[in-house]
């Protein structure tokens, strides 16, 4: 009771911005701005209209989900995307983990330079990376032959995805390593553990939450990527975003909305799993 009356007497404390109605309104409008387009997209995936399906509401239907599921090219691109994300995530986590360990454990000459090199793929414009990889693959004649069997025909895209996602994984894993108690490692070594045993039995278990968080980040990044894939994919290796892009260029149909809704649901699921492993109180920069 006492505190409530005091609050009334001093309506604007030094750091009480969250109680200001005007600021709350900005937050609220900002959230609407961020979510309204996605909500409209989801709603109109159920719209029973053939052409320009997003203009007028014509009643509820799920037929566009059926249509999306029966669109072989779309399903194939979806499988491609998931395969690329899965394979590149495995590599990205391994490379990210060794990078994180190097940066966390060793002192070596030109270390700041190496640190800068690792973070470069995070900061350079996507288009530059996409273009350079496209040129790289074609000027070395690294075209994937047309008749190569399924997972191997995605090699170029997978290589590209590993390259841009492992530095992110490395960052996440390194944060986790900072909380490692080095005395545990020394104790293990004093008790006669070899270098490899120390890594496997002491360091790796401690890294696990970081590895999972890094993997989920790499997975989402891979699933999300458009620009770099756009430059490294061939006519026979279409990923989901590339397929949707080509469909959007033709026309805007409820089928795309349905397919997008499915991907949004998958991303949401991955994010919620990620949240259980990574405290989201420390924001990613």
């Amino acid at each position, binding site marked *: 009771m006492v505190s409530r009356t005091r609050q009334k007497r001093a309506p604007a404390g030094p750091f009480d911005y969250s109680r200001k109605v005007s600021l709350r309104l900005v937050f609220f409008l900002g959230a609407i701005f961020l979510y309204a387009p996605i909500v409209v997209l989801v709603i109109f995936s159920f719209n029973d209209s053939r052409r320009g399906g997003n203009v007028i509401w014509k009643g509820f239907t799920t037929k566009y989900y059926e249509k999306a599921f029966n669109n072989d090219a779309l399903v194939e691109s979806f499988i491609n995307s998931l395969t690329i994300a899965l394979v590149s995530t495995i590599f990205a986590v391994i490379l990210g983990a060794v990078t994180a360990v190097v940066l966390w454990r060793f002192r070596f000459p030109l270390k700041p330079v190496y640190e800068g090199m690792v973070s470069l793929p995070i*900061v350079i414009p996507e*288009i530059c990376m996409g273009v350079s990889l496209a040129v790289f693959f074609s000027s070395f004649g690294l075209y994937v032959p047309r008749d190569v069997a399924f997972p191997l025909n995605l090699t170029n895209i997978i290589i590209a995805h*590993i390259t841009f996602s*492992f530095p992110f994984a490395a960052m996440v894993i390194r944060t986790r390593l900072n909380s490692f108690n080095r005395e545990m490692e020394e104790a293990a070594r004093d008790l006669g553990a070899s270098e490899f045993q120390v890594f496997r039995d002491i360091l790796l278990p401690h890294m696990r939450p970081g590895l999972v968080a890094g993997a989920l980040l790499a997975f989402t990044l891979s699933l999300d990527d458009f620009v770099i894939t756009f430059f490294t994919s061939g006519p026979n290796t279409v990923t989901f975003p590339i397929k*949707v892009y080509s469909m959007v260029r033709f026309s805007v149909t409820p089928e795309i909305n349905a397919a997008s809704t499915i991907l949004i649901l998958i991303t949401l699921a991955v994010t919620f799993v990620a949240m259980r492993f990574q405290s989201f109180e420390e924001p*990613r920069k």
Partner: protein
Amino acid sequence: MESYRRNFRAFLAFFTPSFAWLVLFFFVPLAIIWLYSFGENETITKIRVTWTLDNYRRLLEPEIVSLFWRSVWLSVLSTAICIVIAYPIAMVIATAKPKWKPWLLLVIILPFWTNLLIRTYALLNILGTRGRLNDLLHWLWSMGDGALAALGLGDLQLLGERFVPVKFLGEPAGVMIGLIYVYLPFAVLPIYASLERLDRSYLEASLDLGASQWRTFRQILLPLSSGGINTAMVITFIPMLGSFLIPDLLGRGQVDMIANVIERQFKSGNDWPFGSALSLFLLYVTFILLALQSFAAMRQRRREEARG
């Protein structure tokens, strides 16, 4: 931390894989486009590196200069608007009850995890002349018109005779909405982090000494969070400047930005040397901005240390 010499084999085992990968699939490709930017097209697919500067000279053509200019002002304006919206949002999150904080943060971060293409496509659905945003504007218009009529000003037609839908697609406004929409979460996070860190006793002191809330905000809070604002500006501006998908889909070929022209050199134009020069130019601009930002951050840190 131990010296790499003490356990050189372990060091190599950890160092080599990522280093080799980075060199082979990141630096070699960049080196190739760097070389190509000094090259000439011999045939459509064959490029000879002749160390010509023509590709860079072409960056000064009026067409390309106006392209840079358009990309820069679209990104600058969108960044500014992003910061203006993001700051109050970050303030609300930073000062919310601890129980609420993670959830409010999640509200802002979640769209950022959604596929970029899907978010851009979602905007495409809304921004059309018969899209939902124009529906909203139409509704606002009829409300305003009704209010004016009720005030007896209906005959003056202050808001125009009838509602004219606003064209967003293929216009700079549409592209800017897209840029702001996509990169707003980028701007909120660093500002939030800096507000979360800052010493609140300065604000108390300012208010105790009789400064108004507004003056405290302007002279204490804003300078103390300038580091976060700087970071927010850089990490929203850089991806905006290089964005491809947003101007491509929302600009409809009418509002090209640098990346769209780069893409055309590689996909349809087949002028790789010029495309390489353009990409490298974008890359250099990015580096300069990052260098300026880290320089500013360094100076800020030194100032804070001097203050104690």
